[in-house]
């Protein structure tokens, strides 16, 4: 007697399932601009209290568990800063002597990284700073260790950063000291996320351990942000170019805080990051 309604319900379940599958697949292939607007609308409506709660939790965690580390970092920075006024005076004098203009001050916004449970977390990061704090699209995002990525979508109090681990990431870079230029992109086929320095002329060789920095070309990333250190040659096109494997300076999966750089990409950040031991 009950078979007919059961069969009808089962059929309606299948129809609903197929409709949901169709919608999901449609979103997968929809234009990114349209899906970005939809994602932004959801983040700015139903998800606002949840994002706020996560931000509070991240701040709470930072204030408790990382207090000792932050104090140690602050002490080191305070020690380094003691010599800063003398250096600044010296720099100003040299600039005046050479007729070079004043260096633009670096502006940035600090943001918490709100990690998600998705397996693709790390390709994009949700940051707790948005347009209200001055963040704009294509603002570079850095961690204390080096480059993390670039802002791809901005809401009022949150933003999405596309990290260097994302398959579409590219940045112009050069090697410290040697001045060898290339394009950094995520390495395919590695178990842990690594980068590649592509398009290095065949005549140039880069020793392992060399620091790779953003070149400032392309108008997005300022010059001098550490990208990583060269591990070795991964492949070469005989007589034409070499591709080097690079160990990234900052890992998006582990980043808890980030700095979003504001203003022009013409800034140079050479010397703004402490030297790492090779």
């Amino acid at each position: 007697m009950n078979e007919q309604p059961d069969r009808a319900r089962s059929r309606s379940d299948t129809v609903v399932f197929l409709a949901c599958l169709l919608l999901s697949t449609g979103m997968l292939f929809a234009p990114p601009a349209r899906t970005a607007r939809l994602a932004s609308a959801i983040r700015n409506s139903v998800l606002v209290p949840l994002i706020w709660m996560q931000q509070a939790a991240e701040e709470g965690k930072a204030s408790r568990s990382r207090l000792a580390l932050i104090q140690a970092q602050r002490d080191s920075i305070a020690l380094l800063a003691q010599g800063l006024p003398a250096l600044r005076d010296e720099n100003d004098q040299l600039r005046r002597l050479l007729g070079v203009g004043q260096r633009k001050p670096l502006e940035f916004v600090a943001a918490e990284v709100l990690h998600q449970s998705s397996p693709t977390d790390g390709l994009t990061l949700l940051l707790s700073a948005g347009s209200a704090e001055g963040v704009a699209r294509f603002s570079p995002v850095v961690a204390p260790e080096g480059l993390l990525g670039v802002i791809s979508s901005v809401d009022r109090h949150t933003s999405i950063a596309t990290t260097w681990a994302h398959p579409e990431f590219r940045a112009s870079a050069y090697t410290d000291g040697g001045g060898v230029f290339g394009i950094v992109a995520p390495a395919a086929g590695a178990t842990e996320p690594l980068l590649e320095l592509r398009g290095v002329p065949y005549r140039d060789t880069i020793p392992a351990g060399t620091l790779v920095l953003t070149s400032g070309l392309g108008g997005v990333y300022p010059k001098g942000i550490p990208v990583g250190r060269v591990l070795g040659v991964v492949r070469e096109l005989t007589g034409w170019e070499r591709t080097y494997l690079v160990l990234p300076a900052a890992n998006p999966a582990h980043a808890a805080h980030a700095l979003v750089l504001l203003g022009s990409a013409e800034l140079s950040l050479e010397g703004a990051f402490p030297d790492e031991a090779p």
Partner: protein
Amino acid sequence: MPQRSRGKMAFILLLLLLLQFYLRPRLWDSRAAPDFILLGLLIYATRARPGAAAVAGFFTGLMMDSLGPSRFGAAALATTMVGYLAAWGRAVFFADNLLVHAGFIWGGVWLRDFIVLLASGATGRALLWQLAVWSPLQGLTTAVAGVLILVMFRDWLAIRLEA
């Protein structure tokens, strides 16, 4: 589902939502921390019709996609399938056994990750590494959290758990 059971289920889902956004960020490495949202979906799906579970999965995925849109739609696709399969799985072969529940949750997390990664275009060793290391770890922590929730709310969820 009776009205009263619906209220209890809503309370449990709300609790899991709070755990996801307030407790989870305070735990260890995000890649291995339990996924309370997927746990909520699996608990709901095993008590709902497959159609309702698919819709719940779709909206859960939409939320996840909005929070980390590396490939928008990938999570919606994955959780729709996980929700639907979980509801069917419950109807077909499920037993009220703690280990079966734990294995079911572990499998749900792994399957979700597998579909999300495939839909996001992950390939090669990165895909294998994620599926062989991080997904099983996250599945394990989610299964442990799931067992705790089931034991704590066994009366509300009307299940007779065997060890």
